[in-house]
């Protein structure tokens, strides 16, 4: 049996954000497809609750952020993680022990940050091959985030990320990529063994009791935005949706996920200079993080799901969820990356300018609920993880045979 050790920079016991969910689903599928797989992370433990961590999550350790790598800048925690996986003896030893015990055929790195560890361990165990699981073009995304937050003087860090990204692409037996645009980037450095595995979702089940509970609290005249505390999620919302003047006094935008706190801060931090503060806060409800069954109920009640993503690459897991919900969708071209086949389907409004985006949200909210055909809903099942990851195990067997 092939053994795969997956390495990343966040725990996946309770997957919440897009990266965690993708890694968790890949792990489950590999195991289902006759591959012995383990996932180990080196993570900044203070960012997670205790019950989100397992023995496979190696903490960076208290005080690690004061060791000075890239000025302890929180924007580079992930880069610091890869660095300390080699340069911190405790972390190196823990990872080394895992490798010794598990004896993997492949190390699959989730994004490029753990590449320094692979590069170092390869010296010791040259028989272990690399698989690079790309989630996006990381150096571009990081660079844009830094620009948005006006963090400067970190060109070296961006170059560092790009170097690791390119090295991982070149050094790996095969590469898994999320979107066509990411593949275009990867093809600059290798031409073979690149596999397109989109993001997917699991079917969300809701109960009538839950739906009724939420209906009493939030009604159903709202646009729903689900997003993690990932800076592009805030920036897209700000650029495309604020101010919320285009909503009537009885309509709302409801936000679920970490981005809700970021939007709340954004609104209140600018309360003295932004004349729309009260308009926005009247029409915006932040539900924070919800468990799966509550989220399913809220999705069921929403009139329209919005995907206001205007930069970044990769593909948005929320897009798949929106498609499967059968609700109206107001999306950007960026948010439809990887799901281009669905552009033009009923109830989906592509909106790349803020004017069109707002007009479309307004239109959907004043419409009656969308009724989508069974045939179209069936077609949308391709977004389910089970369908997307159906052949992932074969990639390893095929590669193993080729390498043999």
């Amino acid at each position, binding site marked *: 049996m092939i053994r795969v050790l997956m390495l990343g920079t966040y725990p996946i016991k309770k997957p919440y954000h897009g990266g965690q969910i993708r890694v968790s689903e890949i792990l489950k599928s590999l195991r289902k497809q006759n591959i012995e797989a383990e996932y180990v992370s080196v993570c900044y433990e203070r960012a997670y609750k205790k019950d989100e961590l397992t023995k496979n999550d190696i903490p960076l350790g208290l005080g690690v952020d004061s060791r000075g790598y890239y000025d302890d800048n929180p924007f580079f925690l992930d880069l610091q993680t890869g660095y300390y996986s080699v340069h911190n003896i405790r972390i190196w030893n823990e990872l080394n022990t895992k490798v010794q015990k598990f004896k993997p055929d492949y190390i699959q790195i989730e994004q490029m940050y753990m590449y320094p560890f692979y590069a170092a361990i390869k010296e010791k165990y040259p028989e272990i091959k690399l698989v690079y699981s790309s989630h996006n073009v990381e150096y571009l995304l990081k660079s844009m985030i830094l620009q948005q937050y006006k963090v400067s003087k970190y060109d070296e860090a961006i170059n560092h990320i790009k170097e690791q990204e390119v090295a991982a692409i070149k050094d790996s037996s095969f590469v898994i990529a999320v979107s066509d645009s990411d593949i275009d980037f990867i093809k600059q450095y290798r031409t073979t063994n690149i596999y397109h595995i989109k993001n997917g979702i699991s079917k969300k089940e809701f109960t009538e009791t839950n739906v009724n509970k939420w209906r009493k609290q939030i009604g159903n005249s709202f646009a729903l935005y689900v997003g993690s505390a990932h800076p592009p999620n805030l920036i897209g919302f700000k650029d495309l949706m604020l*101010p919320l*003047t*285009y909503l*009537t*006094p*009885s309509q709302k935008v409801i936000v679920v996920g970490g981005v809700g706190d970021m939007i709340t801060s954004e609104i209140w931090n600018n*309360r*003295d200079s*932004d*004349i*729309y*503060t*009260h*308009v926005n806060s*009247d029409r915006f409800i932040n539900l924070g993080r919800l468990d799966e069954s509550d989220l399913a109920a809220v999705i069921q009640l929403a009139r329209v799901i919005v995907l206001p993503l205007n930069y970044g690459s990769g593909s948005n897991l929320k897009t798949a969820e929106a498609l499967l919900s059968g609700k109206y969708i107001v999306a950007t071209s960026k948010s439809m990356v990887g799901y281009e086949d669905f552009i033009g389907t009923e109830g989906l409004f592509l909106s790349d300018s803020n*004017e069109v985006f*707002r*007009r479309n949200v*307004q239109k959907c909210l004043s419409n009656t609920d969308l009724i989508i055909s069974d045939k179209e809903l069936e077609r949308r099942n391709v977004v389910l993880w089970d369908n997307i990851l159906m052949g992932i195990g074969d990639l390893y067997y095929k590669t193993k045979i080729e390498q043999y």
Partner: protein
Amino acid sequence: MIQGKRLVWDVTTVVRWGNAHAVGIVRVEKNYLYACLSEFSDNIELCRYDSGKKAFFGVDKTVVLSLVVDENKRGKSEFSDVNIIPAWKLKLKYKNFKKKVVRRIKKHSKLYSNIVILEKKIAGFFKPKKEEHVEPEFIFLKNDVYITMGLDWDYDGKMKALYEKKNKHTIKVIVMCYDIISILFPQYTPKGFSQIFTRYMVDAMWCADHVFCISKKTKEDIAQFCNDLFINAPTFEVIRLGSSIKKPSSAIIPSNATFLDEKKFVLFVSSIEGRKNHMLLYYVWSYLAEKYTDIPNLVFVGMKGWLVDDLLYSINANPELKDKINLLHGVSDEELMWLYQNCLFTVFPSFYEGWGLPVAESLSYGKFCICSDRGSLPEVGADLVEYLDPYDTTAWSKRIKELSDDVSLISQRESEILKRYNIYSWEESAKTFIISLRRKIND
């Protein structure tokens, strides 16, 4: 004739102000309401909004009639200054005060917890234990035509409540828009107000089917606002306000400014606030006082408003100007009449107006005005006043000096005003308003 439809007039502001000396907006409402109460008699109902209970309640017509009749009998100048602190301002003041106190006493945690307990007890004491008489809410009927023209931004949640009623009962909503200066120029309003006003205006435009605007400029501004913010625009119509003044029978020199009797002076009637640009005149008079010995006095008539503390300090502290710039407030209508009759001319350098009643008032007294060229002011003064850029201190200095030195120039302009200025009476304005209102009701 109203075809079976009921006109529901929201008199929240009128009721709240009672017989207090009212701001311009309240007087506009009282003038129109007075005319409509007799015109629509049996087909008009009155309601008010209670922000605490978040509900509308009926109001007795006879109570309101006494308030508006009283207003029409006052015989005072139509528009004078505010002496009531609006609710939002009180709330902000209280919040800031509480914040300061809490910050200080939080240092002593035991004292703080005792105060919190005391605050709750006091709140409990004032809360009615059991309401013996519950006032029934106002019942809207299908196809009612609702109109509001008061200080609605003062009533938290009113437009949201109205929007619910509108959708529930399919009522037509008519709103009066005076200006959107607090949105266009938040820098001229106190901290926090433009956010409150913007919320009101966005919600009001979502509620409104028809909006009366007091000038072409206001109509342009509000239409642009709706368009820019993707608010489904209602219809807009300009309604010209009356400019007639109920002049008192005699004029009296202000008792605290008898020295003006022997002086030449220029008059600026307006609340003293940042937007009105008293600062420009301060610079003009500073310049003139430095260059010339014989300059007229400048008289500001109006209550102290927003964002002018530093200016008022400068006027008082400036040894060259403290006798040249005179501040008067709380003047009676007789005193105001004396000031108009005896001034050289008036000035109005405001950065923006939704209408500009002081300019109309100046013309009604036959007085020439040097006026800002911004906002709606050219609609008020037409070619009977002279327009200057409110940022151009040099131009204002030059023109004020020229006119002060050569009274014949002013006389020419005054005779033009006497010949050509038509005073548009409040009665005529109310008649036109009723025709427009009736058309909208029957639409």
